[in-house]
């Protein structure tokens, strides 16, 4: 065989001369870049701080709380905020500050479990629907459409009504309600990714459908999944609080924020702190997750990279 005259042989690129140490760091730049962008953006940084405070509170709850979250002290009921009870006491004389601190654990639990259920099922359904298309897509997405036709809280109430009230069932209900969002987002991401050449390449080397979907298609959908997860945690906490407020979620004496709101509503005229502080806790946590979610959406979008 004759050669073109330009170059005798493939020569390793000169820019690959410096070796080992740089290789790992360089590969992670994508993620470090994203992390930097989150820290730089003010709003998402605030969100990140709120979530960090929430997580630290949950971890060190017994150390931070000044009282037992369930200890009753009927004589001191409806005490306004004071140095003894930072955020006052409720109708059974329980310390609201301690209850909110312990409630952070439940909120995180709800967020993680409910969104975990929604994510795993939603990603699988959306992935399968988008990847296989045709009638599989039609069936899955029409079921998703039906689920989306219900207002989410109504669907959650219906599910809890079937499953029976309680925190675990509330989490499952909130998780199921979150499935359509994930399924739709993942499906649309899969639709564009499955047309790329590297998916065709994976098929051309003999990969089976399961492998193509799990190893090649879904890993390239992580950015929208991460964003949706963060945004969903806020919604899940809010929905679960709503269920607890209606008496369908956490049962007394669990210090769940939504349940605390519900318990205190009778006294809202005389002792507004009983509802105000749990309400604020929910507000800040949901705000935190939403801010971080928005920030992540921007940070993980490579088109915005400068």
């Amino acid at each position, binding site marked *: 065989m004759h050669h073109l005259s330009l170059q005798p042989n*493939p020569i390793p690129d000169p820019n690959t001369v410096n070796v080992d140490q740089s290789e790992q760091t360089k590969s992670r730049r*994508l993620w470090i870049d994203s992390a930097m962008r989150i820290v730089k953006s003010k709003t998402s940084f605030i969100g990140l701080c709120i979530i960090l405070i929430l997580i630290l509170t949950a971890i060190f709850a017994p150390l931070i709380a000044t009282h037992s979250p369930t200890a009753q002290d009927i004589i001191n009921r409806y005490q306004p905020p004071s140095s003894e009870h930072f955020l006052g006491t409720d109708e059974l004389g329980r310390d609201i500050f301690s209850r909110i601190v312990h409630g952070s654990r439940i909120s995180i639990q709800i967020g993680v479990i409910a969104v975990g259920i929604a994510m795993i099922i939603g990603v699988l359904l959306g992935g399968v629907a988008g990847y296989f298309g045709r009638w599989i897509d039609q069936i899955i997405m029409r079921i998703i459409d039906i689920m989306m036709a219900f207002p989410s809280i109504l669907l959650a109430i219906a599910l809890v009504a079937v499953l029976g009230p309680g925190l675990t069932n509330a989490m499952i209900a909130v998780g199921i309600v979150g499935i359509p969002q994930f399924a739709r987002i993942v499906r649309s991401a899969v639709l564009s990714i499955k047309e790329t050449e*590297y998916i065709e390449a994976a098929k051309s080397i003999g990969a089976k459908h399961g492998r193509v979907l799990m190893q090649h298609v879904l890993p390239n959908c992580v950015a929208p999944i991460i964003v949706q997860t963060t945004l969903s945690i806020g919604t899940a906490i809010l929905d679960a609080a709503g269920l607890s407020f209606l008496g369908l979620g956490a049962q007394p004496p669990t210090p769940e924020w939504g349940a605390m709101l519900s318990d205190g509503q009778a006294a809202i005229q005389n002792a507004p702190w009983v509802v105000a502080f749990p309400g604020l806790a929910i507000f800040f946590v949901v705000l935190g997750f939403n801010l971080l979610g928005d920030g992540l959406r921007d940070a993980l979008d490579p088109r915005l990279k400068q």
Partner: protein
Amino acid sequence: MSTLLEVKDLKKHFPLKGQALFSKDKPVLKAVDGISFSVETGETLGLVGESGCGKSTAGRSILKLLEPTEGEVIFKGENITKHRGEKLRKLRKDMQFIFQDPYASLNPRKTIEQIITEPMKIFNIPKAERNKKLTRLLDVVGLSSYHKHRYPHEFSGGQRQRIGIARSLALDPDLVICDEPVSALDVSIQAQVINLMEDLQEEFNLTYIFIAHDLSVVHHISDRVAVMYLGELVEIGEANELYQNPKHPYTQALLSAVPEANPHRDKQRIILKGDLPSPANPPQGCKFHTRCPFAEEICRTQEPKLKKVSATGQMASCHFAEEVVNANEPL
């Protein structure tokens, strides 16, 4: 030499939307409309034609990345047209594809090691052997072993294409279909990759179907060349002969467009009139007649067959293949 691949009357039609409500025949786009050729073991067949003539579709249909509408693909004496599922998967081992765009054909979330060893993983080759093969493959395509932990975005276009080549060689294929493997690369890098492919062909006894629109690249690498127009083969023959003595007016026009290094050489450029007709609604008779400078009545009504036009086996599908031989001489 023995025949490795035989393609018989291969067709790939894509259904079009917009079928009239009560009309029976569905509109289709005839991307590949009945091509036949064979490839001998160890040779390189160049497949050329302008954009949209069905080159890539033909390549993908042969590999069954697209399901052929009609026709037969016979690989190593076995008719693989009806192979599905597991049988087809086994076949992937022997037939590989090199993609056009090195930026799109590598999964951005996998390291080079994962990309190159994945085919071997799929076919259950033990880990020790995989690693040995990986080192060897990186070496033959001119990459170093410390590259293996990196991700595709850290490489240049030429390096990426070499990674793609390494992946396609991981399973020791017999046939490699290269879909414009260098058209996305710089000219200097093109030469590098082409030379590499030639070396690999010798070393691993590969058979190439080389799809391209760059005629000089095809001339350089191919033993035989096939020319496509609107989904059909219009001419096929031994590379040097076809380049020196094209019989089909379309081939002549194509070749007259190749830039010449010598500015003093007097050359007649054949300019085709009109645009490429739509493959959804191809012309009757000879598909080229709308743009052919020699078209006559018969061309408009009768479709020419691919027929032998020289002793060495050059074939062209033109009613006047014998007469227009000298058309590229100054008129």
